[in-house]
């Protein structure tokens, strides 16, 4: 098991955002997390990274307990996140943004740069441009590319298709599938687009106000009427 959460609770001040969340991602698995706005999806991804810290429960990565580690130590262990809101460094060039991604692992960025540029040729064209001046979609590509630069074993993606044209969104999904198939990259994916996410993922979880209410193979969840009604917009 590459990632395992056991009855994790977390929140901000008086706000309890996650309650007794148990979830796991197996090595080489794509797992998706769906839920309404404010359900706690982003909080869950951030809690894995130690910010906010879990108030209760246990998080293990590759068998190692990371619950109490500082964020930077968790990330250096082999987790990367493309976070909500993209968080591209606005006054750094695209190239420096990408290099920042590789610095965690301390390896030479050359080969990984080529890989990211092949995935998103647009980033190569914009290499010398400042992150803050990219379009929303380009920033999204940069955030994902930056996360890949670290050669993570587990990739956390928070709404990677947000703000992207359908064609680009499809490209990103197929890129995720390819990285997973070819390199065995494990992925925990948060998506608004539940339809696409559940088709892509091996398994899925449904989060409702901070609690996991459903779990199952992606295709199976797609067929559940309560999922269709709530998240796929195909219900009555």
């Amino acid at each position, binding site marked *: 098991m590459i990632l395992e959460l056991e009855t994790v609770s977390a929140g901000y001040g008086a706000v309890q955002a996650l309650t007794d969340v148990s979830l796991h991602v197996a090595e080489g698995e794509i797992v998706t997390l769906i839920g309404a706005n404010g359900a706690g999806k982003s909080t869950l991804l951030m809690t894995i990274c130690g910010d906010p810290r879990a108030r209760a429960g246990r998080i293990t990565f590759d068998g190692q307990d990371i619950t109490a580690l500082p964020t*930077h130590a968790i990330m250096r262990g082999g987790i990367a996140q493309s976070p909500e809101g993209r*968080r591209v*460094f606005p006054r750094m060039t695209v190239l420096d943004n990408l290099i920042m991604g590789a610095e965690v692992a301390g390896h030479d960025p050359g080969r990984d740069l080529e890989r990211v540029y092949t995935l998103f040729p647009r980033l190569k064209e914009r290499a010398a441009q400042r992150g*803050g001046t990219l379009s929303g979609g380009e*920033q999204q590509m940069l955030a994902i590319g930056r996360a890949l630069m670290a050669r993570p074993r587990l990739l956390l993606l928070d709404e990677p298709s947000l703000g992207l044209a359908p064609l680009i969104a499809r490209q990103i999904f197929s890129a995720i599938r390819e990285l997973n198939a070819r390199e065995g990259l494990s992925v925990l994916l948060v998506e608004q687009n539940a339809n696409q996410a559940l088709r892509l993922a091996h398994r899925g979880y449904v989060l409702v106000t901070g609690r996991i209410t459903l779990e199952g193979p992606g295709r199976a969840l797609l067929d559940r009427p309560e999922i269709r009604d709530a998240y796929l917009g195909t219900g009555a």
Partner: protein
Amino acid sequence: MAYALQQLINGISLGMIYGLIAVGYTMVYGIIGMINFAHGDVFMIGAFTALITIVLLLSGGMMEGPGAILLVLLVSMSVTALYGWTVERLAYRPLRGSFRLAPLISAIGMSILLQNYVQVSQGARVKPLEPIVRGGFEVMREGGFVVQLSTIQIMIVSITLSVLAVFTWLVTRTPLGRAMRACEQDRKMAALLGVDTDRTISLTFVIGAALAAVAGSLYLIRYGVIDFYIGFLVGVKAFTAAVLGGIGSLPGAVLGGLLIGLIETFWSAYFSVQYKDVAAFAVLVMVLIFMPTGLLGRQEVEKV
């Protein structure tokens, strides 16, 4: 003409010293969004460390040549860097995430603490130092007036430029520099990329203090008198320089330092020496009123 040229030379060498200190203000502001009011006193610590080192070297008969000056600079930089690190550790880190005014108050407390500490340990009297770098060139002569470029002025300018060159390389080309810029732009994201943000902030204080130590050492060698209180006045001027250049901008800090040095020198030469400190404060007030983002400060145009 000759008189003005002399003022230009004096103003630039003074401005370099302000610039070195201003960089420290602007760096810390950039990374934690706070004015480090103890930074002027860190500069003062640098000057005192240099003084003690020089006195020791003099008593050993070893205060000779550029090697000795380099040694003084290195000792002062190391000791002062340690102070910078300690200041951050004691006065700022425990208050991170506290309300905005809290670190400001502890910064002022730290400033008073450092002043009193030096006053008690070194005495309150002004400390004079005999000139240790002599000589210079005659640049030109006009009527009876001789324009001098002293060795020490050449030294100030060349040392400052070298230090700033190394510093620029550090910030723009190295992993540490990138980490500093990342923390400055989005600390949470920097941590998500594996940057140890606490360590990066510590190192920012350390580097700022080392630059202030260079400034303190050069100030001591140039003017030959220091006391425990110089950090306040020089600090406010360097702070003005940082604001004038655009707080948060590194080239701005150097530019602001040069301008403040020139303004102060020309003001003293043509208007009034007694009121020379007023010039810097007047500039501070005007900049804050009419262009709070400073000369090279950033205009917020980014998409967020």
